């Protein structure tokens, strides 16, 4: 059974963790993630969960403690944002390298300097290659649904990788929405408890974190690559079971109206919601536009994305982070790569938008759709990278 309750994105993340039989949470406060740890602390201090909450002295220690707890066989959850994620950076690679299936909510926020507390994706994009599965939620509902599924994906023995579920700072973290939540029992049955493949157990002593030099390091990394490949099947399986439980359908890529479209916007997270609303309006006026939103950013769902863009003549890829000095933003670079690999002649252009929480409005989106339709009509990209909504 499910019911609809009012939750902010952060509360939805904490609620999902509460229902997911988490054993250990180690976290440090940082805007706009703080509500997650505050909410979870209430569960702990009111005796609603069996979890141990470690109120660490930094995000570096948060992730360090999460790694220790995960190696002991616990189900582990944490949350952070921005500078906190940056401070964890060293530990992110170790969490994935030691194959710790930690689940972390990231309430995406711009990185300093200049210091800014609002939403963009520079934090997660800065840790893009840290070996974590990366999922982006469009709304609080998706944050809730993906966090529950993330434990199943991370802890699957074919995967054993940490997972981040990203929710846009303030836009999702602090906005109250109606969220359809399942009964505790249902979620508990769905996620069960963690069954570790190995753990630091005195009955069967193992050494974890040994020195691997030129003779073995490369193979360890190759195994991580393989785990990312295997993750696709596991994500599909988990999505299917979750659909059977909840009726809410997920995949690696969310598409809206692309079947018959000439042009589309491709973006991550909450912006897709605005883009869908604008597309709906334009489509009612006979303009053939759609929206593509990768739910899963790592592993990059190349096949599903190629399938989604089939038939399009133009694609606007929106990045909410700068990749300084790079040919495109990170997401657009990935899209360009798979299109090239597939021999596609789809015309693309990149929109960099929303840095430091700058609003992206329906009229901004409409301008981008107009431009994409123009590119579809003429077959020419005039401006490969646009900065949307900035004062030049």
């Amino acid at each position, binding site marked *: 059974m499910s019911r609809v309750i009012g939750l902010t994105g952060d509360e939805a993340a904490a609620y999902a963790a509460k229902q997911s039989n988490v054993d250990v949470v180690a976290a440090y406060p940082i805007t706009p993630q703080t509500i997650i740890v505050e909410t979870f602390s209430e569960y702990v201090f009111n005796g609603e969960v*069996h979890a141990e909450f*470690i109120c660490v002295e930094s995000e570096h220690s948060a992730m*360090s*403690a999460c790694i220790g*707890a995960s*190696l*002991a*066989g*616990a189900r582990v959850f944490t949350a952070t944002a921005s500078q906190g994620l940056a401070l964890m950076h060293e530990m992110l690679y170790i969490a994935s390298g030691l194959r710790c299936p930690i689940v972390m909510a990231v309430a995406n926020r711009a990185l300093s300097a200049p210091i800014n507390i609002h939403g963009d994706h520079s934090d997660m994009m800065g840790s893009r290659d840290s070996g974590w599965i990366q999922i982006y939620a469009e709304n609080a509902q998706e944050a809730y649904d993906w966090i529950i599924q993330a434990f199943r994906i991370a802890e699957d023995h074919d995967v054993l990788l940490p997972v981040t579920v990203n929710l846009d700072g303030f836009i999702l973290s602090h906005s109250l929405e109606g969220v359809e939540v399942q009964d505790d029992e249902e979620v508990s049955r769905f996620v069960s*408890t963690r069954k570790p493949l190995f753990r630091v157990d005195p009955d069967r002593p193992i050494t974890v974190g040994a020195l691997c030099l030129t003779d073995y390091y490369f193979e360890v990394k190759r195994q991580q690559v393989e785990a990312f490949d295997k993750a696709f099947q596991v994500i599909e399986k988990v999505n299917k079971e979750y659909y059977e439980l909840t009726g809410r359908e997920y995949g690696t890529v969310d598409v809206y109206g692309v079947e018959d479209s000439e042009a589309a916007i491709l973006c991550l997270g909450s912006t897709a919601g605005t883009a869908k609303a604008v597309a709906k309006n334009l489509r009612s006026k006979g303009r053939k536009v759609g929206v593509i939103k990768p739910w899963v950013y790592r592993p990059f769902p190349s096949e599903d994305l190629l399938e989604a863009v089939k038939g399009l003549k133009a694609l606007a890829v929106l990045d909410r982070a700068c990749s300084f000095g790079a040919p495109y933003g990170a997401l657009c670079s990935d899209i360009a790569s798979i299109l090239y690999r597939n021999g596609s002649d789809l015309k693309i252009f990149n929109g960099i938008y929303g840095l430091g929480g700058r609003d992206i409005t329906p009229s901004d989106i409409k301008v981008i759709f107009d431009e994409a339709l123009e590119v579809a009509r003429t077959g020419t990209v005039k401006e490969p990278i646009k900065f949307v909504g900035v004062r030049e």
Partner: protein
Amino acid sequence: MVTLKELTVEELFTSGHRLCAGCGAGIIARMTLKALRRPTIIVNATGCLEVASTIYPYTSWRTPWVHVAFENAAAVASGIEAAIKALKKRGAWNKEVDIIAFAGDGGTFDIGIQALSGALERGHDFLYICYDNEAYMNTGIQRSGATPHGAATTTSPAGTKIPGKPEFKKDFIGICAAHGIEYAATASPAYWNDYIRKVQRGLAVEGPAVIHVFSPCPLGMRHDSDKSIEIARLAVQTRYWPVYEVENGKYKLNIKVPRPKPIEEFLKLQGRFRHLFKPQFQHEIKRIQEWVDENWKRITELCGEA
């Protein structure tokens, strides 16, 4: 005090590791594991002990052993301790275990002090052992917050103007004790039964405990490999390394040194202090002796011995 006969013959830290001959860390690790009361999980900060004992696919550890990074042994131990508590609550962990974190002086005094302070303040049940060889020996002998005044390292060389490290050593046990933890102690591997008693005491404490143990380093302190224990003994007998414990805030001197040897006895066996014996730097030896005397006075006063 334990006797040799009472010690287990079981070797949980096995031979075959690649630590240098005469390395204090290996001796300390072996003695520590002979002091265990029950199954124990080891957390090891990055450093000589870690790199030399677990070169994949080999390991010297017959206990569960975890290395995560340099600065976070105490935080990793916190996570393991919390996990075991939580797993016990849901019946997924059914045995009593102890947790020991090993870290060198760099990983403790400098880069790891925040994580250690946090773990001590939160009160996790674990024993933290800092093996102090008084510099970043693993990276090639750079000065740390634990390097003594006058010692030559690669980042505090014996220059023609500045003769080794200008600063003095941090009061590490004072810092730990200020957290209000139940047990903190210093030790020297030359006094093995005192050390083993302290490990046993530290493990028995419910909550965090800290041991700060002198660790001779033939390579970095530049002494002969067969002089390690002698140097560890001279450190105590010159009053350079007071051996004491702080139990619930109460200081107690464990090894009395009524007739201290002059500090030169300790310094002259080590190449890192060789430059101080040149005529133009002899006054630095006097400064070290003064520091030793003042530190001894401070500690013995705290111990109510003065």
